[in-house]
């Protein structure tokens, strides 16, 4: 395992001193004989932005599912702050402050764009009646969806659905946001807006974990990079060093280093 080898003094940022806000230890998720997660340990510190890359089938989205509580893991532990949440439901984790987006958007069809976010803002009752509506409106403004607020979700396109994924996650007022390939399919200009949005969230102190294939977008935001392959963490640490790593180049970029 190269977990700590990738860490060099150059990658030490202020976030390194902070305690882990979300930490997974030895996660295993088996589907029959397939090990979608094969002993993954992962931690993210408060206020840190971590990128996750890896070839298809590496277990990136499965890791998100395990962190967010979409399914029970076979073995391993997930901790949030100082409590163990391995057996907490997705709903409980959402209320604790973990939000996730889906790679293929899953909007609530039959609800308007505004209502989609309002559901998230109202769930758990942390926001009062007006508070939730205000939060939903401000989140829509932030994600560029204000003009579509009263449009039925079934009528909006893929890009807006991706925005809505982020908006709905923000509606839960998360401390940690898990972003699953939200940059895919965006134009260069839209990607720019997205990076600005995520940068803004980071500046506010939100902890960000971002799975993305678009490396240049990822590298603009993240402090640390994790590369996964075949259900395991291949390398992690300073983004540039991870990209230079021989194993990463073989697994992810499909080329041997010269």
């Amino acid at each position: 395992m190269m977990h700590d080898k990738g860490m060099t003094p150059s990658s030490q940022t202020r976030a390194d001193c902070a305690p882990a806000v979300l930490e997974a230890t030895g996660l295993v998720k088996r589907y029959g004989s397939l090990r979608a997660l094969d002993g993954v340990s992962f931690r993210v510190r408060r206020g840190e932005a971590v990128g996750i890359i890896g070839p298809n089938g590496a277990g990136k989205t499965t890791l998100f599912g395990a962190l967010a509580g979409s399914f029970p893991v076979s073995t391993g532990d997930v901790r949030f702050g100082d409590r163990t949440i391995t057996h907490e439901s997705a709903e409980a984790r959402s209320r604790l402050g973990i939000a996730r987006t889906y790679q293929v958007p899953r909007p609530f069809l039959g609800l308007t764009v505004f209502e989609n976010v309002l559901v998230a803002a109202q769930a758990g009752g942390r926001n009062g009646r007006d508070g939730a509506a205000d939060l939903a409106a401000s989140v829509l403004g932030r994600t560029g969806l204000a003009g579509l607020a009263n449009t039925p979700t079934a009528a909006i396109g893929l890009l807006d659905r991706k925005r809505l994924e982020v908006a709905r996650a923000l509606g839960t007022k998360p401390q940690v946001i898990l972003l699953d390939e939200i940059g895919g399919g965006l134009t260069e200009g839209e990607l720019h807006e997205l990076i600005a949005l995520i940068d803004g969230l980071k500046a506010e102190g939100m902890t960000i974990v971002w799975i993305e294939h678009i490396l240049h977008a990822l590298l603009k935001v993240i402090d640390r990079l994790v590369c996964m392959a075949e259900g395991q963490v291949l390398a992690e640490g300073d983004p540039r060093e991870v990209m230079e790593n021989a194993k990463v180049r073989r697994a992810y970029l499909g080329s041997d280093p010269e």
Partner: protein
Amino acid sequence: MLDGTAQALIQGVLLGGYYAIIAAGLSLMVGVVRFINLAHGDMAVLGALVTITLTQVLGMPVLLSILLMLPLMGLLGWVMHAVLFERAMKGGLLLPILVTIGLGAALQNAMFGIWGSDTRSLGADIGSLAWEGWFLPGGIILGKLPVIVFCVAVLVIGGLHLMLRRTKLGRAIRATASDREAAEMCGVDAARAHRAAAAIAVALAALAGVFLAMRAQVTPYSGPAQLIFAFEAVVIGGLGSLGGTLIGGIVLGVSQSLGGLISAQASLLTGHLVFVAVLIWRLGRDWSADHGGWHAGLVAQLARRVGRRESGAEQ
């Protein structure tokens, strides 16, 4: 003759109010919880028998009995969903059907055990309401009870609609119906949303049961017939559409009422026939929608016929 038809038409519309109330809960469960409770009719009868007992044995005013019974039945629905339906839903399509058929049989026999097989009615407890009416020009009589039932139906359907559209619970129920996992990811308590919907559905069934007992009689075995009427109203109105359920109830009521003009025996049969006709029309429409619209379906049929004649293979 014309007066008779108009009278039957109005009676049918008002009868539709009753069907809409018993169908509303079923519609809610099928449409947003995606759960079919085949004991729905038996829940209606249970609500009626509880109300009758509170009124006739304990001597409470009818209205008070109803107001006491409704939350009790709602609680029963909540508990039923928590302990039974939720587990059944995890077992695929067949299990909810088997479980609720079994529940219906158990309820019928439990009610038979408690109340016996006598027919019971609330008709004697509601005084003049049972037979009084307003006389309209043209000799048309508007029964007070059917008018009240119809107004309640409109209030129930409108209230449910507003609840689903405007309230936090309603939005949570709709979000859960659309994508349960994503809803939970947003912090929505999906199990609670479903239990609340089940509580509302059972309370509405019980309310319908009370109205049935006011205008007619109930026995412990009256449930399945009411379930069929409820289903017919839901299907005629369109699955998952509450407004449609009101219209479905009215269509069913009018069909039965007009059928009754032919002969007393033709009444229920006409309702069933209209239901089957609507079902066939809906299936045909959905089929043609899946195959490029009804005119495309027509063209395909023609082409098939022409093709058969020319023994070509085109469709």
